[in-house]
């Protein structure tokens, strides 16, 4: 899970004093809504094309709309491929090709929780909640392992853990 030699697109954001702990991508479940929209758009377009009949303009609009939904899926997939959740001993941040999109210093974090929805339990992702910093990171893969890494960073001397 842990990548001790971070990807080049992550390493550029790390200072010389920062010890890299974990880098993970978002769980692929983030692609489910755009995937449904893409498939649903193509499905609906195929289904209603005979209804459009001779109206070429209407048919074009329908297929353009379906293409837009497929393009949104492509955009989401591209974003998923280039976005990382990075944990160092100093901070937790999310970065992508566009830069650091959110960051939270660990010294502001008193505690961390992990929660999992039904789909999260089925598909293997969870949400990390940093109550004191008012930050939550959704769709984290390997949620318990990531949780334990962060917990160790926050409480290096604490022996007891509490999994919610």
């Amino acid at each position, binding site marked *: 899970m842990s990548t001790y030699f971070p990807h080049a697109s992550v390493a550029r954001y790390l200072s010389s004093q920062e010890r890299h702990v974990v880098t993970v991508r978002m769980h692929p479940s983030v692609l489910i809504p755009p995937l449904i929209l893409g498939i649903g758009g193509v499905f609906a377009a195929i289904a209603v094309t005979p209804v459009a009949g001779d109206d070429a303009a*209407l048919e074009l609009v329908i297929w353009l709309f379906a293409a837009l939904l497929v393009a949104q899926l492509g955009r989401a997939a591209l974003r998923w491929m280039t976005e990382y959740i990075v944990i160092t001993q100093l901070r937790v941040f999310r970065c992508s090709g566009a830069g650091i999109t959110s960051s939270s210093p660990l010294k502001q974090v008193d505690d961390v929780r992990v929660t999992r929805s039904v789909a999260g339990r089925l598909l293997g992702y969870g949400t990390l909640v940093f109550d004191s910093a008012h930050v939550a990171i959704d769709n984290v893969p390997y949620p318990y392992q990531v949780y334990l890494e962060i917990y160790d960073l926050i409480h290096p001397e604490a022996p007891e853990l509490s999994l919610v």
Partner: protein
Amino acid sequence: MLRRIQRLSTLALILSPVGVLLLAATRVLIVADYNVTTALAILSSSGYINTLVGSVIPLVPILMPYVGLALLYLNRVPAALLAFAAALLISPATLSGASALSLVKHDWGLMTGGSGLRQAVLIILAIALSGLLLIEIAGFQVATVIRTIGTVGIIASLPLIVRLYPVPVSNSFYTNVLSQPWLPAETITLTTHQAVTGYVLESDQDWFEVLLAQDRTVVHYHTSDVASRALCQTASTESKRPLVPLVPAVSQIPACPQPPSPGGAPVPAVSGPGTRIFGVPAVRIPPGLPPKESGQASAGGGR
């Protein structure tokens, strides 16, 4: 976030007094056939709020179904449902309710028919879609599920909506809507049996201030010279019935008389007795004089 703030700033500018004033001024100038004096005369009688509301009202019923679709795409589900409900009640439909139902049945037959390959592709996509949708329902927020269903529903319902509520595609429709004043058109019959079509901007016990429909001239008729007034509707304001009409009766407003063709007899409206052209103070034209060319309203004060 910054982009959102910029969008909100643009919206705030449009809705600010400056934006509203600019929109109202533009609309009044179009209605006044780009004549500033006529525009001032109209504004002195109405006001920019009336101008704006009158600009929007003709477009609301026509565009309401598409506003609903846009709101659905933007995940504004309650607002989209309200827009669709309003469309059922006010948007002019090309078919009655029973005909629309039979059209839906006919469309369903077309959608489920077709070649074996097409049906196989549809079945495979439907199975994949159902499985993913179940995962989405189990693990994602309700808003996400509704947006998914709504967006796919937009494509599925588009052919039906386009046929029920066709969008006018010709430029002439929109130029007509923009150039029509927000007041009801009236056929004004003078005591000389001359009938003119216009929009009554203001009236008191002595005078009617009328914007003529044909040449957008503001004229004043003395009340004693007006034999009758009757509402009429121009071609652009004739409306069809909505899909769910709340009022069963069909209004019987007659169509406005057509203006004479170019080269024909000039409109006699402004030459009748007791008539004065806007900007010409208190001119009474005696009966029997030859018709006078009206032209645009000249510069100057009111009556």
